[in-house]
Each structure stands twice: as C-alpha cells, then as structure tokens.
C-alpha cells in the first residue's frame, strides 16, 4: 500500500508573509538624504582666466558674507530675513526699474516673446564664514528663484511648478534662470 505523503503544514505561511511585509516596510522607509542641490562651474585654469567678462553693475546682485556671518547686500547691511524678498525683486524687476537688471526679449515656448532678466546673483563669502550661515543664504537665494517660478506657474498654468509637465517646467526655467554665481572666497572685512 502506497504511503500517503503528509501535507506540508501551512500554518507558518502567515508568519512568513508578515516577515516579508515588515522587511519591505523597513527598507522602503529608509529616510532619503536630502539637501540643496547645486552645480559647480567648470574648472578654469587660473592662468587662463581672463577677466574680460564685464557685467553691468545693475545686472549683478552682490551678496557678501563676512567672517562674523554678517550680510552685505548691494553695498549695505542686510538681514537674512529680508534677503528672499530682495532677491525676488531683483530677479523679477516688475516695474522695469533703472537700478534693477535689464531684460532682453527671448522666444520661449508657451510664453512667446518674453522679457528675460539678465540679472546674476553673486555670492561671495569669507574663508571664516560659518557653513551654516552660508547654507542659510544659499537657501534664501534658491528659495527666491523657486518662489518666482512657482508664482509664474500658478499664473500661467494654474498649477504649482512641481506638478507641471517637464516641457512646461523647462519653459518656466527659461523665464527665470537660476543664475547664482559663487565666486571664490576672498578676505572680506
């Protein structure tokens, strides 16, 4: 008489399933590293560096941070709290002010011919500036540009910038380019 093979007990199946579930739960909730994303400029040999790049005074927004973590914005003392507003005003120049940057017309998809600012934000820090302050300043400058883009996205497409399709985001990025130049640090008193 053939022996019947006993059935494999399936009581522990639930436990195995739970184990897998917990495994995936744990692996997917690993906190993602986040931070301020920036792109460094291409390395240029100091000997080949020519200082022929002349940018008009009104087109540059100068932010200096000294070793005591104080801010000098366009030649006067400033607080970090006001920096975002001032950077926004500089990049947008809504009233076409003479002292704020020039604009030049450009063809941009979705917008047609648009006036695009020629403004550049220049950030320079001292060697003894604290990293925390530097990041706070960078953050405000990036935030200014992000806010401008978001406002434009809401006006034009009725949606926040983050939820737009890729080509619309590109168009908005063309209108408000992120031009933050980080000059090499010098001793700023």
């Amino acid at each position, binding site marked *: 008489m053939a022996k019947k093979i006993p059935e494999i007990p399936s*009581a*522990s199946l639930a*436990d*195995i399933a*739970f*184990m897998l579930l*917990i*495994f995936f739960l*744990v*692996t997917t909730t*690993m906190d*993602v*590293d*986040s*931070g*301020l*994303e*920036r*792109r*460094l*400029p*291409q*390395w240029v040999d100091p000997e080949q560096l020519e200082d022929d790049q002349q940018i008009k005074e009104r087109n540059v927004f100068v932010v200096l941070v000294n070793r005591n973590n104080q801010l000098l914005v366009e030649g006067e003392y400033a607080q970090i709290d006001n920096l975002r507003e001032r950077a926004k005003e500089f990049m947008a120049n809504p009233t076409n002010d003479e002292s704020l940057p020039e604009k030049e017309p450009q063809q941009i998809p979705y917008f047609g011919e648009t006036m695009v600012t020629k403004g550049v934000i220049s950030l320079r*820090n*001292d*060697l*003894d*500036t*604290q*990293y*925390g302050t*530097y*990041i*706070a300043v*960078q*953050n405000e400058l*990036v*935030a200014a540009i*992000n806010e401008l883009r978001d406002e434009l996205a809401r006006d034009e497409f009725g949606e926040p910038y983050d939820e737009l399709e890729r080509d619309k985001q590109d168009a908005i990025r063309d209108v408000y380019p992120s031009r933050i130049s*980080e000059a*090499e*640090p010098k001793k700023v008193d």
Partner: protein
Amino acid sequence: MSKFKDTGKKEIPPISTASLPDIVFMLLFFFMVSTTMREVTYMVDITLPEATELSKLEKKSLVSYIYVGEPLKQYQSTFGVAPRIQLNDQFANVNDIQDYVIAEREARDEAERPMMITSLKVDENTKMGIVSDIKQELRKSAALHINYSSRQKVER
C-alpha cells in the same frame, strides 16, 4: 439534565511556542536592516544645517559622500579638534579628494558616470575655508553636481 454540564476541571491550554522562531527572525531582520543604513561609521561629529529648498537624493548608488566636521571624542587625541575631512572610513586631506572622486567614478557603470552626485555632509559650525577647498578640488576633478546635505527646516 443540563447540556452544558461542567465536566470537572478545565485546564488552560499552554500558549503555542511554534511562532517563536519567526518572531525572533523578524527581530533579527529588523536589526539587520536598520543597522546597515549607513555605509560608513562617522568619525566626525556632524550637525547638518537647516534649509527649506531641499531636493532628494534618489539614486543612492550614484551618490558619493564627503563628511566634514570635528573629529569625535575618541579621535581627538590623535587628530585634534579642528574640522577634518572623512572619506570612506578614514580621515583624509584635501589633496585626497581627487583620488577619491576618481575611485568612486571607476566603481560605477560607464553609463551612470555623468549622473553622479557628490553629497557634502558638513557640520554647520565648520568654517567655509575648508568647504571652499573641497569645492575647488571637486571642480578640478569635474565632479560638478553637488548636494549640500541639510535637514528640513521646521517652521515655528
């Protein structure tokens, strides 16, 4: 005659211990997973700065890390208290960064190399001098895409 007659002493059945190994395995898995989260052991003390405009580092395999901060207590007798750079599991100098970037690049697929990101985990009390030096070295080794690691700022 009652249908529900008490049939003498009823014993409480013992709790089954068959699932005990599973529970233990579960714990084991939990600890295994949670302890391998960091690739390196920190030898420097890092409090990240706060920021609001964060973007996430999504592809972990493309990220290489540079840590900067004061050495931990147990290393202070050897390395002092001035902020130092940590690459992988050892302290390094600014000059080592180029080699590190090249080594990291070699370890990746050819197709992935252009998308590599360098994450700078720097203590917020570090002076910018050392950070600028690192940035210059990164520019020299053409690792231009960087990420200043920071915490989400809590609005108060």
